[in-house]
């Protein structure tokens, strides 16, 4: 299962961090027409004040603690905290639902906080990641959702969350790391057991992974939240990487990463390996099969039980049963406009969704290639996982692993059969 999750990686650092990174790293210069230059530079660098407002609009604090100084979103909107409380037994559903809720809550337990983000992340990387999120944490099922963020908004958010990319600010640390010994760094990584939690895609297999029980609550969060080290060189400024290795908790007090006693030379060598190890290109994922239609009747009850209820309801729910909140895919949230797509019962599913002009459309209307829209959205999620996002269809489920080929086959068969009850 870990290997299959590890296979979800799609990013090649050679192709990463497009767009404003060059402007962001360059030292600002003055020239004629300073107002225009300043405005253009500000736009290229992003506006942290706008970024703060965007963080509220996109409801970053609904998942991530430490995102904004404002109080946390209302509890009903906090996806992870609700699930954490269900698992901890402190949120009491009705008796007969308790068992079902606990069994059903397998995801949305662990989520990285954004505490001290501005000390750590490169803005250029954030700008790219926000527009094109990918599976950064192979042992964590949910991923950053692909929100409706444009390039300018991504830059502003990155300016709010990230550290300035100006090369001069990080030159000393970069030079320090350049003096490190990557070979020793790799040996240290194995000796210190870093592979116990971290995957490092693209380097020769690392030894030293201690046997860790994923069910062990003490290490569960460490395992889930440990990012793939392949992307550390893009994500973190060199000084942030050094500081992190010296003391993760000083950089981020709520981190799940343990403190590793390291000498300054060891820190430098580890950082050198992380930043300079040769990375094999990521292999393109083979396309998962699109299974043929089933040859048996498929009813709404089966599709609802296996797909809608299990996966879709939270975001496409019934507001009357949920304090007026039908979820981001229905009454809006995460910066999405209300789309009115309610997947809770047959009649609601048949009622479709609302477009940008406020017009209702069937969720099953065929796209240009004849694929029903709902099926196209499910297939698009698989494309996103393979780093081939579609511009015209947002993949579903948002921020979750794609449905299995069998589940998509079930939905597609049901639709093809005329959506029988």
């Amino acid at each position: 299962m870990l290997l299959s999750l590890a296979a979800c990686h799609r990013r090649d650092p050679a192709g990463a961090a497009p767009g404003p990174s060059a402007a962001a790293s360059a030292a600002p210069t003055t020239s004629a027409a300073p107002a225009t230059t300043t405005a253009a530079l500000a736009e290229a660098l992003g506006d942290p004040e706008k970024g703060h407002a965007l963080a509220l609009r996109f409801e970053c604090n609904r998942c991530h603690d430490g995102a904004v100084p404002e109080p946390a979103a209302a509890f009903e909107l906090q996806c992870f905290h609700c699930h954490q409380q269900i698992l901890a037994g402190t949120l009491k559903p009705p008796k007969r639902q308790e068992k079902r809720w606990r069994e059903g809550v397998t995801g949305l337990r662990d989520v990285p906080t954004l505490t001290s983000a501005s000390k750590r992340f490169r803005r250029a990387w954030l700008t790219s990641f926000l527009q094109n999120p990918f599976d950064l944490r192979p042992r964590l099922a949910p991923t950053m959702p692909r929100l409706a963020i444009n390039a300018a908004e991504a830059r502003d958010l990155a300016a709010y969350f990230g550290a300035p990319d100006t090369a001069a600010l990080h030159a000393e640390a970069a030079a320090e790391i350049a003096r490190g010994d990557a070979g020793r760094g790799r040996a240290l990584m194995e000796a210190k057991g870093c592979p116990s939690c971290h995957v490092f895609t693209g380097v020769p297999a690392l030894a030293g992974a201690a046997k860790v029980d994923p069910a062990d609550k003490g290490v569960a969060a460490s395992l889930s939240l440990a990012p793939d080290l392949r992307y550390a060189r893009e994500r973190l400024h060199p000084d942030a990487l050094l500081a992190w290795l010296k003391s993760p908790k000083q950089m981020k007090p709520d981190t799940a990463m343990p403190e590793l006693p390291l000498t300054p030379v060891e820190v430098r060598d580890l950082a050198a390996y992380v930043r300079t190890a040769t990375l094999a290109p990521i292999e393109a994922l083979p396309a998962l099969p699109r299974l043929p239609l089933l040859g048996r009747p498929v009813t709404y009850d089966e599709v609802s039980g296996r797909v809608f209820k299990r996966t879709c309801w939270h975001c496409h729910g019934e507001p009357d049963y949920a304090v007026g909140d039908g979820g981001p895919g229905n009454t809006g949230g995460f910066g999405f406009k209300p789309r009115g797509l309610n997947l809770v019962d047959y009649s609601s599913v048949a009622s479709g969704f609302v477009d940008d002009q406020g017009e209702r459309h069937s969720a099953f209307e065929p796209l240009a290639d004849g694929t029903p829209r709902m099926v196209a959205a499910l297939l698009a999620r698989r494309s996103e996982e393979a780093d081939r996002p579609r511009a015209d269809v947002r993949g579903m489920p948002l921020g979750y692993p794609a449905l299995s080929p069998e589940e998509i086959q079930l939905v597609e068969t049901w639709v093809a059969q005329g959506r029988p009850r």
Partner: protein
Amino acid sequence: MKLRSIVRIVSASLLLLPFGLAGAPAPAEACGTEFFSVVDHSAENISSAEKALGQGRYEAAATSVFQIFPKLRSTKVGAGPLSDRALRILALAAVRVDGGLTVGKGVTWPMAGVTPEQKEGNLVFAIDTLRKLNEKRANSPSFQTDLAEALGKVPRYRAESYAILTQLAKKDLVASAEGYATLARLHEALGEGAPRDAAVKRCEGMTKTPKACQVPASPATTSS
């Protein structure tokens, strides 16, 4: 009251005070505070009533909503999300038995559907309720279909029903089998054979009780 009794009461209260304070909720923290949230059982019961409605158990569905909201007949649309759902259930239950619904024994304002006048009165109540619900939840094919289904039961409203349903059908947004059944009957009354058959087919696909999709032949088509 004697002074000694007052002192005893006050003393007892002071002794119990720490227990009361201990039971008081702790100040809330940003997250991780233990608290208990209990789902309102009314929601579950309404959901069960909706299931009964969908299964064709109209009297049971209507009885349930009266048990949850005894004053339902005098509750206005918009009073609350659950009472709105209850009103919808009651309205559709009345529609689907052509107004012949008698439920709510023991409540202040039950529903009686025995005489033709009572049946028509129930249908008018249903139409009025569903119209208000439709206005409240604008641009919802589900509510539009419900309203059109009710309108289709009363001759003077059939044109309006037809307009709503044909528009929804063009965009594949008729939200219920009953909606398609209504549309099929309206097509039949207008002598529109092919659209009628298409609506019947969609109805049969959407229901577990295909009998509900049968369209009685209209006098015009049987008079040959």
